[in-house]
């Protein structure tokens, strides 16, 4: 047991809960689907509670809950990128925006669930026969760095108590996000309604919208002044270009 690693991970897990709470606030505020909105609000409240559980646990283990570990900073950066995806959804239908939000919840909950699973495994290993004695030896790094007055048994019990308090809700969050996303996407794929194929053409310059539709007096091709472009305005996508590129040598 590496005590500093434990504190770094707990800082990261706390950040994940904080970012999850923020994610739920955002997606709840923009969802127009009552089922989703209600679940986001409920899970958001539970996530806020998980945040409190982790703060208590860090304090119980003698750590500083305001400490932001390097892995916590990376976790926060990743979580922010999930939320940032909302800055690139123009052109999506409302249903697609909702699916993007739900997918972000699934990704966030997958990470969150993995964090609590790890904590559960740590608690189990600490309780393994013989492990307590080993960790409690004066030469153990864990024992050497832990605050005085905190035994390995105290530590194991605190972690296990936190896991017990949260685990079922984390299972529910992940399961719900996975099943709901599958169900809703399946419903859309099988029964629609299909979003308008023109939805993205309103925000992206494209070859399917004639310029005459957008402009009352476009400059037309003129062999002297405005020769027609030798290339179409769009090329193949990067994947197609890469696959179809001639093999050299």
């Amino acid at each position, binding site marked *: 047991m590496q005590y500093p690693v434990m504190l770094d991970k707990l800082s990261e897990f706390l950040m994940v809960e904080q970012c999850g709470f923020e994610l739920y606030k955002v997606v709840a505020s923009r969802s127009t689907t009552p089922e989703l909105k209600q679940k986001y609000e409920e899970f958001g409240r539970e996530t806020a509670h998980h945040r409190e559980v982790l703060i208590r646990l860090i304090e119980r283990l003698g750590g500083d809950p305001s400490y932001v570990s390097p892995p916590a900073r990376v976790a926060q950066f990743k979580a922010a990128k999930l939320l940032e995806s909302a*800055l*690139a959804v123009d052109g999506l239908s409302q249903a697609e925006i909702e699916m993007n939000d739900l997918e972000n919840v699934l990704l966030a909950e997958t990470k969150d669930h993995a964090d609590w699973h790890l904590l559960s495994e740590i608690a189990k290993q600490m309780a393994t026969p013989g492990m307590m004695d080993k960790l409690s030896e004066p030469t153990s790094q864990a024992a050497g760095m832990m605050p005085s007055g905190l035994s390995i048994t105290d530590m194991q019990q605190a972690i296990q108590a936190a896991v017990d308090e949260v685990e079922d809700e984390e299972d529910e969050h992940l399961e719900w996000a996975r099943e709901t996303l599958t169900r809703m996407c399946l419903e859309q794929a099988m029964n629609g309604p299909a979003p308008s194929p*023109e939805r993205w*053409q*309103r*925000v*992206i*310059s*494209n070859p399917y*919208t004639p*310029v005459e*539709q*957008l*402009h*009352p*007096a*476009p*400059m037309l091709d*003129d062999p*002297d*002044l*405005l*020769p027609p*472009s030798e*290339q*179409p*305005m*769009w*090329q*193949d*996508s*990067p994947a197609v*270009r*890469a696959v179809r*590129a001639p093999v050299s040598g």
Partner: protein
Amino acid sequence: MAVPTTLDPWREKGIPLEQQFRSWREIVKSPYSKLDVDAYTRTRIILMNGIEIEAWNFSHQFHRSTDNQEIRALLARTRRVEEQQQITVNWLNPGDQTIIETTIGYEQVAIDMTAYLARNEPDPYVREAFNFGLLEDFDHLYRYSELLDYLEGTDPNTIVQGKTDIIPGRPTQDHHNDPEVRLLKHYEKNRALPLSKLHIMTLLSGEQQTYNYYKNVGSFFTDPLARRLYAEIGEVEEEHVTFYGSLLDPTETMLERQVLHELMEVYNYLHCVQQEPDERIRGIWDQFLHMELTHLQLWAEMMRKYEGRDPAELFGDTLTVDFQFTENKEYIRRTLERQRDVRELPLPLDGGPNWALKDQLPSDWQSYAYQAAVNADGVPSEEIVDRQRREAQRTERPGNDLLERARELAVQFRGATDEKR
């Protein structure tokens, strides 16, 4: 049309980065003579200064957004070179070239660059965006020409050398829009041609530098009308920076944009080398082209390392450059005939038009309110015309005939605009 020049920007040998820092004497070179410089040598200098400023500026934005030390270190190194290049380029302008004379050069850049890019832009939507901005910069050239005549008695043709017409375009008083109206659709980064991206980034850099210049030098004047005119046209340049900037795909990564910037620099230095008649200055363009090739290749390597993408797949194996500063008078006249009365509408989320003729604008067009606010107690770009009309009979100066004809048109267009309000 120039013969296109093609090179492999990912393999063409450049100057090693460690050999790119120069002494003060190498950085600051003798300026050109404003009496015999070719008009398009001056425009190339103005454009490349703007491109270096944008490269420097973006590099700062990037470095403030990452804590990857390898990337920050390369940004710091290439940025310092860009900064030295910018000094060299901008310091080629001579000290005896007045602010307004330089301003005429800036507008000539905007006009002949935008027109050429529009004529060669493969995306019809982007092309119309260019045409729209073109007629505004075209009008700015006329308004500043009046200011040059009024304050300095100089014929603006000494700057543009007959290569660019000086007549009113879409009246500047109509360029003031509700900020949201200026937002355009953006290109799709996966499908758009590299050429479109290069055109947009080049034009954006030029417009941004024009904005920077007007916003810095406008306060150097003591004449109140000159101060107001720079404020008015400077704000239109802000609209142009917003306008062209909105064409960029916002999902491009910082590394992708960094490579695009370097490629844009290679593209532009290459046409400078190709077109420059002044041997001394061509040597500078050639040296800087080879510095930029190294920058591009170093950043390409970063993209491969951190994004797993080959820039050649993204931007093409070869770079073909056919841009040149050249006369576009006939194209601009034709565009003016067709599009002087075109105005912009907010991004049509319902699939409607993005532009309309002014007599078909809805009565609640957002820009009416904005124009009513900013034009409430006079319009500097019209005041300079009135001032000149009053003064015109007193002194005979070179260029009077040209400006008098332009003035008649300005008053005629103003009447048509005011009638519609």
